[in-house]
């Protein structure tokens, strides 16, 4: 099933509708590839440098956002790479100030698709008699998961503990609340940009954000007292 939505206001892609498909979803069909044929070589090089700077500036935060949502490093890297590719292919000709909301819109679509696929795969695997064996294969190495025996500074241990608690609390948030909180608080998008990335109204962003903060405070209060 494909859910078609349109980007609101200034971030609208015009006549190209976004699609939550397997590619992470924005305009997979008949998309005009950014008018690359019309730009000169210097302009293309300049655009490439701008894109490089933009992607380099957001890649770590984008990875952390994907990792918190997917709880898996490899999946998070795949999602970020797909989002980069999709942005470059389909929207590199858009004004640079639109890139960030567009990128996170693509990334959130990709994350959602991966979560859905994971749910379906889990459902199918539960019917197979040998799924327990495959789960065992996928399980992480217990030695690797064991805490390091090397002495660590107390501050680092406290930081790791706080980070683990925060990640757990973020993962337990409803999807929209987690999106609103991470895009606003961590990525630093304004309300309009967050609304564009989430495909909802600015009022909904405020509501989701407020509820996320309330929930996180109730869960994490002990770590910040």
């Amino acid at each position, binding site marked *: 099933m494909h859910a078609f939505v349109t980007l609101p206001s200034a971030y609208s892609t015009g006549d190209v509708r976004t699609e939550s498909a397997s590619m992470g979803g924005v305009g997979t069909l008949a998309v005009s590839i950014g008018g690359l044929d019309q730009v000169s070589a210097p302009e293309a090089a300049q655009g*490439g440098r701008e894109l490089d700077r933009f992607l380099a500036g957001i*890649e*770590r*935060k984008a990875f952390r956002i994907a990792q918190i949502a997917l709880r898996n490093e490899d999946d998070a890297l795949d999602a970020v790479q797909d989002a*980069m590719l999709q942005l470059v292919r389909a929207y590199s000709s858009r004004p640079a100030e639109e890139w960030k909301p567009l990128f996170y819109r693509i990334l959130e679509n990709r994350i959602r698709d991966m979560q859905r696929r994971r749910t379906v795969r889990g459902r199918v695997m539960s019917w197979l008699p040998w799924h327990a064996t495959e789960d065992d294969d996928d399980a992480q190495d217990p030695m690797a998961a064991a805490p390091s025996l090397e002495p660590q500074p107390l501050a680092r241990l406290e930081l790791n503990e706080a*980070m683990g608690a925060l990640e757990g609390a973020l993962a337990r948030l409803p999807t929209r609340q987690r999106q609103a909180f991470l895009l606003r608080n961590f990525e630093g998008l304004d309300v309009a940009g967050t609304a564009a990335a989430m495909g909802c109204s600015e009022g*909904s962003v405020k*509501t989701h954000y407020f509820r996320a903060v309330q929930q996180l*405070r109730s869960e994490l209060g002990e770590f910040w007292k």
Partner: protein
Amino acid sequence: MMSEDGVPLPDPAVSGAPQEFERRVRSLLEESAERLDGSVRSRLTRARYAALEARRSPVRGTFGAWLPVGAGAVAASALVAVALIVGVHRGSTTVARVSSVPVMAAAAAPSAPSVDDLELIADNDAIELPNADDYDFYEWAAAQPAPKSAGEPKSGGEEIGS
């Protein structure tokens, strides 16, 4: 200040606690992003270069994007046509040969009708199954010796006129 569904939102100018909490969360998240290990940073860099490389590579337009779809459809049609033709011919000649061609088994299975069979089935007047009352006649006719060719009537008209 109220949200869309009536939930009161804190005024940042009045309530300082949420701001402090949000700052601490943000600083923790940013530190975790800065402390990513080298392998992850390397993979992110490679992903970025791969994306930028895709921008430099030749771009196919809309026609190019649809070209593989059209070519695939033509190839599939040609394959179906060949399968039908081969299947029909083999079905009408010999069953033994088609059974030795597993790829075309579906189209050329022993039960696959030949062109003649299809015409026969389509023609209501060409086939007349015996009624239950006529079984004795057909048994009698089958028991009769075959007529000599010289004695066979040349046409129904002559027989009637004789």
